[in-house]
């Protein structure tokens, strides 16, 4: 090696002085790209979650400033929830939603299996079957409330045609929730169907052939070979269905507005009713309901994040 000054002249490309940004480019760039997203998301999503917790500690009618108009009541809103029958009804209805909404998964699988063929025009059939998912829940709600109309609704016309009594699906407190869930299952099943159709596409054909050589047929093939491979699709269908069930609001609002006499309320609707609806002036109470809903959802979010985290970890190794 000769002296140290020579190379600087010989290879100018490496010795250029660089600015601070240039030197820290790799470390700084991601943050620059993240800032707008994080900012927006924090302001509108993350911070409001905590604000909701905060509001739930107040008795406040939503008019004026919470610090002035609101009254700090601590956990009292939550205490009141415990004895609130409507809350209890909502909770039970949410449970019904959770459980019955899951029917969308087997139903979607069934339709997907039915449609997983390559006959002429099947693409059109598939997209038409998917239709309900694209339509707004508001329209689905309207469509189904007309479908359910007592006496003149199509469903009742059909029932009567087969000699059954007409049923007031949305007017009977014992039936209404199920009727709304059925309406909700319509688009949700379509969603699950799409997930399964793509899942079925991704099933390794050689494994099916191996299974055929192994003598697995029909439902055995489905159970032992296909379903396990559809696990990712099932997982996603599960996640989106749970979330859909807990978020159910539009349908209830459109179809029964919580009625008859509050029997179709779920937490998300009850919360809205308490906080923002015509007679609802209890922001604190509503927020407390939202917090409970959030905590329930947190179980599922946690589960989802955990499995994502597991996948991430595996992907790295």
């Amino acid at each position: 090696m000769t002296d140290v000054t020579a190379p600087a002249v010989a290879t100018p490309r490496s010795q250029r002085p660089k600015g601070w940004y240039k030197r820290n480019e790799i470390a700084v760039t991601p943050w620059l790209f993240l800032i707008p997203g994080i900012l927006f998301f924090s302001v509108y999503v993350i911070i409001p979650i905590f604000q909701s917790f905060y509001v739930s500690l107040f008795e406040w009618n939503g008019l004026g400033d919470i610090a002035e108009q609101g009254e700090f009541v601590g956990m009292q809103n939550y205490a009141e929830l415990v004895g609130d029958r409507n809350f209890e009804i909502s909770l039970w209805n949410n449970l019904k939603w959770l459980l019955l909404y899951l029917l969308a998964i087997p139903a979607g699988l069934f339709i997907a299996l039915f449609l997983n063929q390559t006959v002429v025009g099947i693409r059109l059939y598939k997209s038409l079957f998917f239709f309900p998912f694209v339509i707004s829940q508001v329209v689905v709600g309207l469509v189904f409330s007309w479908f359910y109309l007592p006496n003149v609704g199509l469903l009742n016309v059909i029932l009567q045609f087969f000699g059954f009594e007409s049923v007031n699906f949305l007017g009977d407190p014992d039936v209404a929730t199920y009727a709304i869930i059925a309406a909700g299952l319509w688009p949700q099943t379509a969603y699950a169907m799409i997930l399964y159709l793509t899942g079925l596409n991704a099933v390794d054909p050689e494994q099916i052939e191996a299974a055929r050589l192994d003598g697995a047929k029909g439902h055995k093939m489905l159970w032992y070979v296909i379903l396990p491979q559809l696990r990712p699709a099932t997982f996603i269908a599960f996640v989106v269905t749970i979330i859909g069930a807990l978020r159910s609001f539009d349908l209830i609002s459109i179809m029964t507005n919580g009625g008859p006499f509050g029997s179709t309320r779920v937490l998300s609707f009850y919360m809205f009713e308490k906080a923002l609806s015509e007679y609802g002036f209890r922001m604190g109470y509503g927020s407390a309901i939202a917090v409970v809903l959030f905590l329930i959802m947190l179980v599922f979010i946690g589960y989802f994040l955990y499995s994502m985290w597991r996948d991430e970890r595996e992907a790295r190794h």
Partner: protein
Amino acid sequence: DGHSNLEGTLRIISDMSNPAPRAAMEGLAADFDEMHPNLTVELEIVDREAWKSQIRNALSANPPDVINWYAANRMRPYVDAGLFMDISDMYANGDLPGLEAVQGAMTLDGAQWGVPYTYYQWGIYYREDIFNELGLEEPETFEQEIANCQVIVDSGRACYAIGSKFLWTAGGWFDYLNMRTNGFDFHMELATGQASWMDDRVRETFANWRTLIDMGAFIEDHQTYSWQEALPFVVNGEATAYLIGNFAVPHLREAGLTDDQIDFYQFPMIADVPMGEDAPTDTFHIASGAQNVDAARAFLQYVTSAEVQTEINGPDALGQLPVNANSSVADDEFLQQGFEMLSQNASGGIAQFFDRDFPAEMASAGMEGLQEFMVFPDNLDDILERLEATRERVYE
């Protein structure tokens, strides 16, 4: 006069979204705009049902100058929150001649918070032709009512159409049954939380109601319909009467019923108490955050003036009753009857309506209970317990 030099913009949000009121409101705004060359009137008409929940947002940020709302307790949250402007001085100054009689409905905490612009009677609208066919008379007592109803039910019809999906129609029934059974004062005690829902008098009201329910007086599945959706039952003759406000009349006419086919009678007497009536008043208010207060006040004066009142409540506009004592009631069978009923026959007092007299939370829980009662009368005990619990919390 001094108003002609109004300038700037006057922002009005109105909930008169049904076709006829909408046209009336639009005309009103246009006229006012024309009267004041330097003033621009911006009118936004919002859905009437939606407005009930949206008003608070509208008042919070960038509030308009003038808005629609309802009288009585329904104003309470906004008055408490300081969102309505106190216009007591207008009443005191005599800026609002002819409104003395209705001032009460606008009064909370000893001050006035807005002006009424229309009100309407409630009562029983019925199919005159079917009554004639069955040989029935307008009843005056509850016994007659029940007897009539029996005839109607026997003829294969329901006596009353009602659409209780949005609950408040059931509130109308309760108002009347309770006012007739126990009198106006007791009804108000209940509304203000002084009387208990466990009171035997309340049970008596419900017992009367139950008589009707048990005989099949109401149409089936009413909990599924909105009030408009129940109208076809009357139109088609499947139900003969409808306890409803006068606003239903244009709808009935539009559906093809002539004035020969529909008529109106006052809710019949049950107990020997002075007859109270529901006559809900719709109102205009100035938002406390209004930018153009001068124009807003002028507008309030304008709508409540005798001529304008006559005009906008006319049969081809709102088709309701004017609030100004100096204006004239339109030459309309129902308005005339209603006006007469309210001015002559409402000796008990005039109530606003269930959801306006009761505080919001009580009203909401209450009407839900009423609807449930109409479907499952056997649940009464449970319902009353619930309402009582709510009462204890709401009025604490």
